[in-house]
């Protein structure tokens, strides 16, 4: 071991806190006197710092790897949590879309003016009681459920008033003669403004008659108008669903 090495060993023992008592005092004395020893002490101290820095770096690096794995696992699990939710939502949305499309296709293929007419046609009920004073033969026949008699009488006597026309038009509908019914209903709708009776009823039933006469385009215009007027007495008889079917009919038979 050289002199220099001898000092190095003592310096290291000093740095490691192993020098005590007389040995420590004599080394501290040496330090004060010998600048080379002081310099080597500084260098070895720096080396120790380098080791501590390296140790810390290694510790951080080890935790770093662990944490990166943890973050990546968290990212994966959060994706795993999100993806099933997205998948389920998409499945539900696709099923719903398929369901709606199926309904749309079914409705489109099955809807027809006559079907819509039959689904919505309800014969008008005359509110006049049987045998009441002032009841005409035509009204009696209508109340008696004899549409052919009504139309026979109507054709003989001709147009009298809105009520007569309306009951006659209803009878034509009952006899499956929508073309004739349209003609008579329209007579009520274009009658002089002095007589407003049966106009709202005629409006609804003429639209139905158009359906029965395979003219869904004409019917749709009238039904939409009634649907848009909340005060119309027949407003509640028309649903959005019915208008949707009318739109489908317009697509199927655009010219009518």
């Amino acid at each position, binding site marked *: 071991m050289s002199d220099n*090495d001898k000092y*190095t*060993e003592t310096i*290291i023992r000093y740095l490691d806190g192993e020098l005590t008592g007389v040995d420590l005092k004599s080394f501290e004395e040496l330090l004060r006197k010998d600048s080379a020893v002081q310099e*080597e002490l500084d*260098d*070895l101290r*720096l*080396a*120790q*710092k*380098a*080791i*501590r*820095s*390296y*140790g*810390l*770096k*290694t*510790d*951080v*690096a*080890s*935790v*770093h790897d*662990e*944490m*990166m794995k943890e*973050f990546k696992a968290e990212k994966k699990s959060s994706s795993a949590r999100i993806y099933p939710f997205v998948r389920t939502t998409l499945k539900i949305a696709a099923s719903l879309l398929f369901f709606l499309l199926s309904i749309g296709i079914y409705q489109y293929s099955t809807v027809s003016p006559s079907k819509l007419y039959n689904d919505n046609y309800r014969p008008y009920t005359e509110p006049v009681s049987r045998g009441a004073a002032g009841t005409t033969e035509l009204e009696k026949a209508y109340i008696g459920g004899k549409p052919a008699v009504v139309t026979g009488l109507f054709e003989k006597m001709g147009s009298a008033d809105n009520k007569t026309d309306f009951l006659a038009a209803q009878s034509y509908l009952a006899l499956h003669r929508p073309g004739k019914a349209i003609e008579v209903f329209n007579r009520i709708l274009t009658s002089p403004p002095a007589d407003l009776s049966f106009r709202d009823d005629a409006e609804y039933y003429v639209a139905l008659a158009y359906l029965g006469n395979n003219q869904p385009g004409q019917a749709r215009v009238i039904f939409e108008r009634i649907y848009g007027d909340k005060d119309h007495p027949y407003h509640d008889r028309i649903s959005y669903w019915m208008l949707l079917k009318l739109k489908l009919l317009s697509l199927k038979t655009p010219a009518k």
Partner: protein
Amino acid sequence: MTKAVVNYSDKELIETLKKEHVGPQVIKYLYRTYFHFLSSYIKQNQGNEQDAEDIFQEVIVSFIEVIKAEKFRGESSIKTFLYTLNKFTWLNELKKRNRSLLRDTNYYESNNDEDRDVSHLIVEREAKGMVMQMMDKLGEVCKKILVAYYYNNLPMKEILRLIDYQNEQVLRNKKYKCLKSLEQMLTADPELAQRFKNALIL
């Protein structure tokens, strides 16, 4: 599996980091609390995921050293301090890569004392990296002995269990040689040694 997560206030964190040995739990806390926040700065400023990871690792080592050297003045919160450290480390890295610097080109001219300290540390980070490479040159056994003794503060008897040596005296001799070798490597490049010293005396 649920992990036990320890939370620290700024004060508790500083006190814990000042202790002789820094445990993995406190380092994990730093990662869980600040990694996403700091890495987003890197990724928003021309860096990728790997850059963000590397810079964060460096930032944590520097931060712990700053605390241990009692150079953290507490003028700002730990979050702000780490942000500054992260920013300067990344800008320095960008400069090293010869990329155009962002808006903070003059970051060395900061008026804040803490910022100046940080920028000083960053300037010397390359020297620090070179010294770390020297450690690697010592070999596995030397590294193991020196780190166990000077960083983990293990007594020689315990280190003897880790290293397959005949007795404690043989181990002491080896430790002496390893430390001397490192010292010689450092003194062989006085400029590097000085720069490394500068990086440590923060």
